[in-house]
């Protein structure tokens, strides 16, 4: 079997396991859907009847494969509460989550690259230590805490930006951006730490290479050496981590979407959990986990294309 087909097989196996696990968690745990729909006053006969109508009286494995079959054709079922198609609900919320993800990544990269470059100019120097210390500090700040602090500073104290709420792009680009700045900053300020660390360590390795010595010997100023020669070959791991973050942020921004009341996929999931809307929970979790797995897979592939050594080493450990 070739390397690629083995990886594809692995992807399919993981996806199968992920959907099965999701189905299992959502369906085996307490909370009868029929009672949720009919309310507490329903008679046992009504409940039994509805269970039959929904097909809940059949074995779970059978129901799983039916659900999987329609999920593969893009039908994730309909919400029990609003009878909105689950797939449509996700697609409606996706642009907000994607915009948040892109803006957060840009913020993180925007902080990480200059910080790493300044750090490696003089390793162990004052800036290196400041950026290492602040990275360590930010590692101890959870997003819900940072979000609150940013709201307090920028909205309550100085009244510069809206605290919560979302303005769609159709109602003005600036209003839209304004409502996204704090959420993106919250995520970006947390994520830059990892990016800075990997870029810094890769830069230090690159700076030992002969071509850097040559560039220096030619008399190029330190900044040209760093920006023109060292940065690009050092950004390999950085790009990988960025890619992995995309997968995490598609649904992983639950907390930030909740704090800032952004109507994204994460908040859809949270609402569904609070409402016990099982089919919506299941669809959203499946969507989030699947995008996470698929994007991580694509990043791994990209990694392998860029660096053939990976094909032989990475997946064995």
């Amino acid at each position, binding site marked *: 079997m070739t390397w690629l087909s083995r990886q594809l097989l692995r992807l399919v196996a993981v996806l199968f396991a992920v959907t099965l696990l999701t189905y299992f968690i959502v369906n085996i745990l307490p909370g009868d859907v029929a009672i949720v729909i009919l309310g507490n006053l329903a008679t046992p006969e009504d409940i039994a009847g509805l269970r039959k109508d929904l097909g809940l009286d059949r074995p779970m494995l059978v129901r799983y494969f039916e659900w999987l079959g329609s999920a593969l054709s893009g039908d994730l079922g309909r919400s029990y509460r609003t009878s909105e198609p689950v797939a449509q609900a996700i697609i409606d919320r996706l642009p907000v989550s994607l915009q948040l993800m892109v803006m957060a990544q840009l913020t993180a990269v925007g902080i990480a690259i200059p910080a790493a470059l300044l750090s490696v100019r003089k390793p*162990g120097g004052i800036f290196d230590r400041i950026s290492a210390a602040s990275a360590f500090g930010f590692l*101890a700040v959870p997003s819900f805490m940072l979000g609150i602090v940013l709201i*307090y500073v920028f909205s309550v104290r100085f009244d510069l930006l809206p605290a919560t709420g979302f303005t769609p792009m159709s109602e003005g680009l600036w209003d839209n951006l304004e409502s996204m700045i704090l959420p993106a900053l919250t995520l970006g300020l947390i994520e830059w730490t990892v990016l800075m660390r990997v870029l810094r360590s890769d830069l230090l390795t690159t700076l030992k290479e002969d071509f850097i010595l040559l560039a*220096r010997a030619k008399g190029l100023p330190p900044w040209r050496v760093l920006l023109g020669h060292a940065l690009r070959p050092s950004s390999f791991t950085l790009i990988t981590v960025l890619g992995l973050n995309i997968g995490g942020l598609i649904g992983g921004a639950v907390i930030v979407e909740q704090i800032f009341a952004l109507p994204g996929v994460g908040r859809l999931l949270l609402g569904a959990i609070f409402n016990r809307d099982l089919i919506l929970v299941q669809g959203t979790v499946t969507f989030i*986990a699947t995008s996470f797995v698929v994007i991580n897979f694509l990043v791994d592939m990209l990694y392998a294309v860029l660096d053939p050594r990976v094909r032989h080493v990475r997946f064995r450990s």
Partner: protein
Amino acid sequence: MSASAAEPLAPARRGRRIPWAIALPLAWVTIVVFCAVTANWIGLADPAAQELILRRKPPSAEFLLGTDNLGRDMLSRIIYGARTSLIVGLCAPAFGFLIGGAIGMCAGYYRGKVDLLLVGVIDVLLAFPALVLALTFTAYLGQSLFNVTLALGILSIPAAARVSRANTLAWGNRDFVLAARTIGASNWRILTREILPNLLPPMFAFWLVAMSVVIVAEGALSFLGLGIPAPQPSWGGMIADGREALDAAPHTALIPAGVMFLTVLSLNFLGDIVRNMVDPRRSAL
């Protein structure tokens, strides 16, 4: 510049590490643990007693850290919240390490098909976004201290399994393991007497870090309203409550946030130091 540029930062820093970098985090963690353990005996106000007339009072001599939206004593709630955080922070990783550690040891020791199967299972668990899984678990298990701990414990299984597998792989090749096998020691004996003792130091370092991750995760769940149920104090829940009154009484959110930050930071510090002692190679990170 070229000579110093090539040197990684860590060795220089390690040599110069000043004692307060250990003393301060250790002191803070000790204070938090001491308060949480003795909470019942140090004359604190009832953390659930509401006094609506005294709501949202800033810190004063009577209420050292002020009162919250319902007029409850913040200091008392912070300390009882510390108890919640510590229970979850100690028990969840312990649960995960017991199961994950055993899985990792088996995978790393027996290798072959066992390894392949176990690593596959771990990969699937890791394929889930952790918070989403935690949310789903607690939402359906029901909210209680026990269930939150259980959910976070299950979530720490894969990471613990990875650490223990990697270390078992490394130690399993050593001569003393070969020697034990040669004199006829059983697999069980080799695993428990030869390999396990060597696994404990790196697992301890990892446990400190896992503790801070779990405390943050519990905070996040409680913040979202899916963690520790309401009257019981929890730092995440307090931050969520305080958010309602950020303009009128910012201390109700910022004080628990600060306490949580210091605790997590201290644990990370200590974890980092222990890891450097256990594995000098990784100190560069």
